[in-house]
């Protein structure tokens, strides 16, 4: 065993360990530890990615010297390490992109706690990506939920507690369903590791017994993870949870937390549950249907909402609909597209949240369209970032969003004919709807408001001059340097890179997914 093969385990332990030592550190030190740790995890994941991609194989890593049926293990392949690298990079850039707002939004003495939550979140996401054990997955799902709730309520205003309660209620129902599904699975197979469980399930499916329990297990596990990732009919907590927390938290929650659950679900579908063997269950078609409805309804809700951050949150509902539509297509190309969209949507959504915050700041804290008029001239980097994110969301060529839409459309060609027609229609309608609300916003931020008013708005946001009831409290935040811009520019560059050099990533996803079975 080479040293590189240990890196995934190091990544998980490192992020947990930095959470533990951050308890005794000050907020500033915890921040440095977090940034260094995330960077290190990213670099290590790249090494693992290079190793697994070069050798073209995957391996399981035994934890605690007990062999398969008793011990716990993690499984590492190209796909897992790609996801780990992408997640840690997005987290790093999102934290950098909102670093002054963390200072502003969260009390000094509680900042350390915020970074502890982030460390734990990364640990649980990495564990969800790598784990090969179902019960470990459940435990880390709960850790992820708790850490995410901590991120939501880090900003100490009444509104976020309500959002956090709503988030917790939906999440806990999701994890409760997952847990009982897991218990049923254990009851009929006697296995908790993924590969033996799959063999046992396949055996049971071949005999034709236990069809009802198997269908129930599939429904429970899928719906549980669907609720937690914000699949359409269970999406009510999303706009609240993403719309009011501090900007890094919103970016990370929308781009990473829900994606961790989706990745786990894809893993379960491919590696454990015999989706194809139970014809009566129809899970794929149900996911497809919910995904398609979510794509449309999410966009319609986004058009109706005036608040820019809630608008971006509703667009998450639509984008998660895309991912589930890809899974529901039921072929490998669809799953590849869904996995690619996990990465590209992660980048786009964190960019949009960061850029939107930049725009809001230079408009005296206004969240509505009227207040944001001309904001693109006042904060140029945020304006360009928001435009790139919006164009990518709509699916402009050369940007990441185009590649994922193209992959979804081409995956639909090899699906059954009725699915192909529905998928194409939904893609077309959803693209038009995306264009309506994102282009409207881009036009608004590039509409000049006249020199006098612009200078007043800018001054109001940047100094202590009171021109609006809101400006006083927001004023302090804008003694900021170039760091937040680095986050926005970095993610924009990544989106353009992902759009132009997409073939490399697609290759890794294809090869990794082929090894998944």
């Amino acid at each position, binding site marked *: 065993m080479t040293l590189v093969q240990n890196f995934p385990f190091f990544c998980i332990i490192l992020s947990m360990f930095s959470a533990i030592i951050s308890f005794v550190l000050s907020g500033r030190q915890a921040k440095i530890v977090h940034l260094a740790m995330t960077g290190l995890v990213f670099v290590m994941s790249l090494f693992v990615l290079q190793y697994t991609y070069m050798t073209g194989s995957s391996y399981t890593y035994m934890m605690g010297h007990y062999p398969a049926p008793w011990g716990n293990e993690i499984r590492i392949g190209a796909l897992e390490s790609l996801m780990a690298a992408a997640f840690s990079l997005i987290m790093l850039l999102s934290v950098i992109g909102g670093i002054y707002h963390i200072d502003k939004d969260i009390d000094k003495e509680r900042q350390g706690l915020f970074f502890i939550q982030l460390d734990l979140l990364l640990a649980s996401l990495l564990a969800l990506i790598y784990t090969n054990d179902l019960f470990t997955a459940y435990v880390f799902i709960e850790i992820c939920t708790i850490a995410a*709730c901590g991120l939501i309520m880090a900003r100490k205003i009444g509104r976020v507690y309500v959002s956090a309660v709503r988030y917790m209620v939906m999440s*806990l129902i999701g994890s409760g369903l997952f847990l009982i599904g897991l218990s049923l699975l254990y009851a009929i197979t006697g296995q908790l590791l993924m590969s033996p469980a799959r063999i046992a399930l396949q055996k049971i499916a071949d005999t034709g017994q236990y069809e009802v329990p198997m269908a129930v297990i599939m429904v429970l596990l899928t719906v549980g993870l669907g609720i937690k990732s914000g699949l359409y009919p269970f999406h009510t907590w999303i706009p609240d949870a993403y719309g009011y927390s501090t900007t890094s938290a919103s970016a990370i929650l929308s781009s990473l937390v829900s994606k961790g659950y989706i990745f786990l679900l894809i893993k379960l579908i491919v590696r454990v549950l015999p989706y194809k063997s139970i014809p009566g269950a129809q899970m794929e078609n149900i996911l497809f249907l919910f995904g398609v409805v979510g794509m449309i309804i999410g966009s319609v809700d986004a058009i109706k909402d005036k608040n820019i951050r809630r608008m971006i949150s509703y667009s998450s509902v639509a984008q998660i609909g895309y991912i589930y539509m890809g899974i529901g297509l039921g072929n490998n190309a669809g799953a590849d597209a869904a996995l690619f969209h996990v990465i590209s949507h992660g980048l786009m959504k964190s960019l949009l949240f960061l850029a939107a915050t930049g725009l809001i700041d230079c408009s005296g804290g206004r969240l509505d369209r009227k207040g944001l008029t001309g904001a693109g001239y006042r904060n140029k980097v945020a304006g360009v970032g928001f435009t790139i994110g919006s164009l990518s969301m709509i699916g402009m060529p050369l940007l990441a969003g185009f590649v994922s839409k193209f992959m979804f459309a081409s995956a639909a060609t090899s699906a059954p004919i009725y699915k192909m027609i529905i998928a194409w229609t939904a893609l077309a309608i959803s693209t038009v709807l995306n264009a309506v609300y994102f282009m409207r916003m881009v036009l608004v931020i590039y509409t000049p408001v006249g020199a006098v008013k612009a200078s007043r708005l800018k001054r109001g946001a940047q100094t202590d001059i009171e021109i609006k009831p809101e400006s006083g409290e927001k004023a302090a935040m804008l003694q900021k340097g170039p760091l937040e811009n680095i986050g926005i520019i970095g993610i924009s560059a990544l989106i353009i890179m992902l759009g132009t050099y997409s073939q490399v990533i697609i290759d890794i996803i294809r090869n990794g997914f082929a090894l998944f079975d």
Partner: protein
Amino acid sequence: MVSTFFTNYEEVASCILFVIGMMNLLLQPNLIKKIIGLDIMDCSVYLFLAAKGYIEGRHAPIYVDGVTDAVNYINPVPSGLVLTGIVVSVSVSALMMALTINLYREYSTLNLDEIMMKLRQEETEKLGRLTYGAVEDEE
């Protein structure tokens, strides 16, 4: 059919409890009752697991008197899962309670519907202020 329900009464009970707990968690407006619902839901799963792991006439898997044959013991894995699950659910309920305390301090009620109503009022006021500010700007 009915006899199956009677032989598997633990599983039936845990399913009923699970649904009761989940509905409470979802539909109760009172935050404390929501937390109780959550605990009922989690406990029903532990009941299910414990019932699955028990084998009639065998002992707890604790090594005494030099009996090493596995035939004498019940399945230890579900018990381990229940223990882990209890730890998880305790921390989750603690978090929910902390949230409830904070909400009570802020809005002096435990009813989520009332809290939402107050919140909406606050927001309408804030929106009114904002529009007022915008009108002032255009003058």
